[in-house]
């Protein structure tokens, strides 16, 4: 299917820069509920709920990001939404909760470069010093005029979630700003 370049994941910047790559995510859910629901869902995934601001938990199957006191973002790397959703719904049956499939609401980009934090700070006001935002940290924040979810996988390695229609804007900004870091000095 010849979709538009401008609405799909791999936009201009991602395709021409090795340091910014689209990331396939098999399924995404927003889970909201009390501590019991959050713990039950994590347990069903074989994980402990990251019950602290800005923390994540995960393995090679699922990553759970703390978005708010009663809100988590679940990223599934292999299992697709219908199966995972059914499994989670069963585990959550006894708990008041909201589980919403947002797999296609957003897209993911992986930014891997020595200048990654400095580049992000061209549009994101968050303190990205590893002492303030350590490896394994994740949070909703903003990049200029778009909301993003930022997850630090390594010191120079960030996973960025952005709503689908804002992806082009984000990638253009990153590509533009990166010229300050990739252009030869002088």
């Amino acid at each position, binding site marked *: 299917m010849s979709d538009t370049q401008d*609405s799909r994941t791999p936009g201009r910047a991602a395709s021409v820069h090795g340091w910014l790559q689209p990331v396939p995510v098999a399924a995404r859910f927003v889970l909201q509920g009390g501590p019991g629901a959050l713990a039950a869902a994590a347990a069903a995934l074989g994980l402990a709920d990251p019950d602290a601001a800005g923390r994540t938990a995960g393995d090679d199957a699922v990553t759970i990001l703390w978005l708010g006191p009663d809100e988590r973002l679940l990223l599934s790397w292999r299992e697709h939404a219908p199966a995972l959703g059914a499994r989670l719904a069963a585990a959550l049956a006894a708990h008041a909760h909201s589980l919403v499939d947002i797999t296609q609401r957003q897209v993911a980009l992986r930014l891997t470069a020595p200048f990654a934090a400095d580049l992000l700070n061209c549009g994101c006001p968050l303190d990205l010093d590893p002492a303030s935002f350590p490896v394994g940290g994740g949070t909703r924040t903003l990049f200029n005029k*778009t909301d993003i979810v930022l997850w630090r996988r390594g010191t120079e390695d960030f996973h960025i979630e952005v709503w689908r229609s804002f992806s082009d804007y984000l990638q253009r900004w990153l590509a533009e700003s990166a010229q300050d870091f990739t252009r030869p000095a002088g």
Partner: protein
Amino acid sequence: MGRLPRAEAAVPGPKAFVDFQHDVMLKDLDLAMREGFRSIEHIKRYTTTGMATDQGKTSNLNALHHAARELGKPVPAVGLTTFRMPYTPVTFASFAGQARGEIFDPVRRTPMHGWAVRQGAVFEDVGMWKRARYFPRAGDDMHAAVARECRAVREGCGVFDASTLGKIVVAGPGATAFMDRLYVNDWSKLAVGRCKYGVLLRDDGFVYDDGVVARLAPDRFHVTTTTGGAARVLAMMEDYRQTEWTDLDVWLTSTTEQWAVIAVQGPRARELLAPLVDGLDISAAALPHMAVVHGTLRGIPMMLFRVSFTGELGFEVNVPSDRGAEALEAIWAAGASQGLTPYGTETMHVLRAEKGFIIIGQDTDGTVTPDDVGLAWAIGKSKPDFVGKRALARPSMRSPDRKQLVGLLTRDPRVVLEEGAQLVDVPGQSPPMKLIGHVTSSYASATLGRSIALAVVAGGRARIGQTLYVPMPGGEIPVEVCAPVFYDPKGARLNV
């Protein structure tokens, strides 16, 4: 300092400007010193020399030398005035920085944007979104394209990208109570799989947003909002949820971009869709107006709404965003040879106006109650409270003289009124006139073969049948007040 010799004679010389930005002249400086000002800072303030945005770049030394000579002091003893930034120009590019061109503002495109481009769409900006406004064919101007698109929907079938509508999942055991407290409607009796037109007020009683709401499960609603209202409605919901109604177990999630939405509208919509939905029964009995069902379209997971913003038999196909283009191509492949016609926001506006369906922010302006726009029927009468209910009880909100939504028909059917034009009830007035309302929506209706308009008019419903006047530079335009539904007032075309 260079200065043309000025005869100290009685004959006034030519004007000798010192400050080219503030037009300060030598005689102004002389006057300042005659008035007794000796400090250069005082002379500056008295004359404003050097106080323009150039901060003395063109004038300071001129003024200084002149003052030194007149005061009989050496130049350094007179001193410089303080000049302040920006005494060198700052370019607009410096203010803009990188925020220019494509990255000045996000440009949001729907999953079907590329398809619309290939169909030759002319786009318009709606918030940050690019929306297809109309689809001109060879030789079409907008008027011709819209007339053709309107006829296609009324007589055959049209297809429309409705993806930008805001969507919010309201879920949790407290979902029904939450919706009951927030919207004017009564949600308790809405069955799973059914939809209702929801009206949202602020607590001042004025219409804030609207949209179709579906109950997907006993504890789960799919709420749609206006395109422009998506973010602010979610923010308002979160405010009440977090700070007022903490007794409710309910949560909110935006799904605006989870779904691509393809509206298929027109008397032939069902026969076009039926072969595509993999055996799903979409007959009137199985899927009546204002119902929703899950299924697949050519294998693509789908939520299918039987809803209409056109007044025709209509469906809205919701598929996951990354398959929106694929779903639309499938519908297009099946329908193009049978007259399926792409239509844009302009045609959508005309069709809904023919039915008297309001657009928030166009026919409302933040001072309009549900009754003002004919939506009092939506209010759940037995509910003890909802956001806005108390304010609606104030006497001023119930006055029969409030501005009410009505239709207008120009005496000359070819005249299309200007949106925003004012209305008077007594002709021949000279300004200031007594204005009694204004035109909110106005179109040439191909369906009706004449112009139509919606307006808000003081005591408007009691004026139906009267003639009012629209004073314009070219003269007064007489219009007749009518009910704001111009087409199929009984809704017979919806329930087929």
